[in-house]
């Protein structure tokens, strides 16, 4: 009998995995756009579980179910700098059963960097459900840099000497390039890797600057091992340390907020897109949702509706395209 028990548990494990991984793959067409969603919606997230993109997608999904009564099933597909996920959704049926949840890094920077041969025009962008406002520019203690003004001065005195940690061809690389242009300085951009690699190498004094999420460095800012120089937001995000200035306040005309994007395959019924906008607007008003975002990533809720979102993303794409040669 015990043998059966083992098999039962083994098969249960396999089944559990199978169900969770395979949910939403049955692609029978959804009903008309008006009633959408009539069944669970499969959401492909361009990042692995545990990061900021995954957190935003899952928090949104929780409240989506509360509003619509239908669950969102999250699949994390992090591969190929997010291109595996974007390709998957682009090529799937436009019946509202599969959604892409990503940010401008995958939707725009990947195209600018030449990683994908399609663009945001190959999707039906629904809306911007949330905007990341937690990124800060950080300097290592060993660099001796204390403020943005100090950075500009030191960089002008020794062009190309101060090092900046990035992932080449990625969002953080672009952040560095724009900073250099807007501040009129020359930095040495290095490939360092993920956020944790950046922190490790800054603590070890091997690299001077990096753009990192505030939550990951706030302890080090307190101990003095890392120095937070500025935030990338248009206006100060009061959920961070209120003393962190914006770049604009430091005299550099540089704003780079990171919108998350919900997108459908091209050709999706407009009624579905209207419906998710309606839902997203409702979610953004929910005080519990707002509190969850602040607790997790010091992020105030912000929802940008369809038309305005398209306009913003088109503008962003045009701005980023100016750096195409440098990024590739």
């Amino acid at each position: 009998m015990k043998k059966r028990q083992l098999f039962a548990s083994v098969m249960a494990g396999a089944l559990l995995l199978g169900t969770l991984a395979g949910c939403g793959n049955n692609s029978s067409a959804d009903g008309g756009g008006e009633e959408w969603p009539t069944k669970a919606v499969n959401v492909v997230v361009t990042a692995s579980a545990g990061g900021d993109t995954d957190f935003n997608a899952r928090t949104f999904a929780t409240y989506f179910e509360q509003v619509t009564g239908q669950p969102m099933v999250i699949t994390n597909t992090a591969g190929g700098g997010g291109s595996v996920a974007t390709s998957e959704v682009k090529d799937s049926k436009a019946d509202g059963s599969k959604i892409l949840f990503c940010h401008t890094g995958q939707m725009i920077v990947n195209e600018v960097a030449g990683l994908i041969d399609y663009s945001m025009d190959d999707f039906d962008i629904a809306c911007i459900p949330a905007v990341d406002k937690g990124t800060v520019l950080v300097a290592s203690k060993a660099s001796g840099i204390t403020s943005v003004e100090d950075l500009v001065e030191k960089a002008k005195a020794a062009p190309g000497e101060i090092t900046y940690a990035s992932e080449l061809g990625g969002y953080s690389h672009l952040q560095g390039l724009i900073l250099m242009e807007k501040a009129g300085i020359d930095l040495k951009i290095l490939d360092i890797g993920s956020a944790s690699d950046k922190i490790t190498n800054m603590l070890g004094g091997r690299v001077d600057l990096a753009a990192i999420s505030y939550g990951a460095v706030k302890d080090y800012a307190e101990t003095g091992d890392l120095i937070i120089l500025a935030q990338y937001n248009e206006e100060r995000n009061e959920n961070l340390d209120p003393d962190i200035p914006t770049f604009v306040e430091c005299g550099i005309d540089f704003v780079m907020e990171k919108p998350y994007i919900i997108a459908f395959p091209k050709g999706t019924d407009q009624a579905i897109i209207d419906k998710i906008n309606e839902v997203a607007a409702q979610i953004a008003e929910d005080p519990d949702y707002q509190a969850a975002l602040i607790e997790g990533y010091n992020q105030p809720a912000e929802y940008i509706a369809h038309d305005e979102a398209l306009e913003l993303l088109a503008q962003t794409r045009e701005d980023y395209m100016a750096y195409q040669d440098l990024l590739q």
Partner: protein
Amino acid sequence: MLELFAQGFANVFSPFCLVLMVLGTVIGIIFGAVPGLSSVMAIALFLPLTYGMDPGQGLSVLVALYIGSVSGGLVSAILLKIPGTPASIATCFDGHPMLARGEGAKALGAGVFYSFLGTIISVVALMFIAPQIAKVAINFGPHEYFAISIFSLMLIATLSSGSMVKGIFSGVLGLAFATVGIAPLDAVKRFTFGTVALSDGFDVLTVMIGLFAVSEVIKIAEVAKREKASDVAQVNMKVKGFGFTVKEFIQQIPNAIRAALVGLGIGILPGIGAGTSNLVAYTVNKNADKKHSDEYGKGYIGGIISSETANNASVGGAMIPLMTLGIPGDGVTALLLGAFMVHGIAPGPLLFQNYGPLVYTIFVACLVATVLMLVIEWYGMHIFAKVLKVPRHILLPIVFVLCVVGAFGLSSRVFDVWAVLIFGVIGYFFTIFKVPQAPFVIGFVLGSMAETNFRRGMMMSDDNFLDFFTKPIAAAFLIFTLVYFLYVVVKEIKKAQARKTASGQAV
């Protein structure tokens, strides 16, 4: 500190938390034992469920899953000769020969006990000396990582007794497969043939499942049908304690200590973990344990002890940089970092200071999960062994299905299923020509690490290669590599000469 411990105990010993941890340990062991399911999958599946719990409970469950799954791999490694996870690859080497000799119970007992010991040693290190040893991780930049990955590659390529050439061949082939996909740094697409699926390269789990599990299924498929009922291996589970004697325990203390140190050290370094440490510890002990060096790979208990102590010691090791620096050491700890972050807690230098009760709850959870693992596996051993009573022509197709399910579960792609089958065929030819599979896996894992860090290092040093030899840690590892290589070459030549003279005398 005692007060904090008491608080931690109170948190963990709440009925809700304890039930969840028992469940977590059992599920972890199953995910570890089933080829195709892994620690990362177990935790990725359960992470979202912990979002709604309080941080202490959520992390306790995840820790239980982690510890259970790293240990669980030993079951299939010993019974089926298929490592359940990459952390138990070296356990196969001696585990299966012991089973074939009728010492399966002893092999399982030793594996379970030393998993327990390895975890405890590393958790104690985590509790008492974490801040001091975590600083080691900061000193490792791209140059140092390149050097240590080359060192580990060399160590494991020479592992195959008899033919070093075959070991190096296997390792180099692994390196070659690691180059498929988007290249590090400049994002050039290599060997993708214009497909999106290949742009992400192969997943390490598809490589491992294919080479070890699918190849074993193919191999047995050749003979299984002709097999009589009497051929089915039987395990006599009537053993005292864990199956090994006090004398053996004392004799094995040096092996266990070396393995624990290797496991802990490799665990602390971000980027490499239990999947590498079990093989490195095995190689280190095989070389250091001079008296028994020849018995490794033929069913020697020391081999199991090396592998299982080291892989579980890497668990606590990986938690050290996570909890003291906020730096995750592997895929699993990256997920644990996410579990902290959703509650607005960023692990870092002030975690102990700001979240003392939570930290001690996690410590207690580690200890409790370790004991749970010991108890559950000890009682489970008898159930596990019954698996062998299932005729192999029924058992292995089930294993095969699980492998395919696991591969698909990685990212819901049929591509990964094909990859598993292809690596299975490669693995089958490896076994026919007696080429070891382990160097392939390690070459695959460390290959991309070596490449990425080499290029990052060159970038950091303005393309000055000499920096790899002027930075002390990097230089030391590279020199070790060279010395060790020469040592093995000289040893092999001597062996060959001895064989020649021996055969000459025989004539």
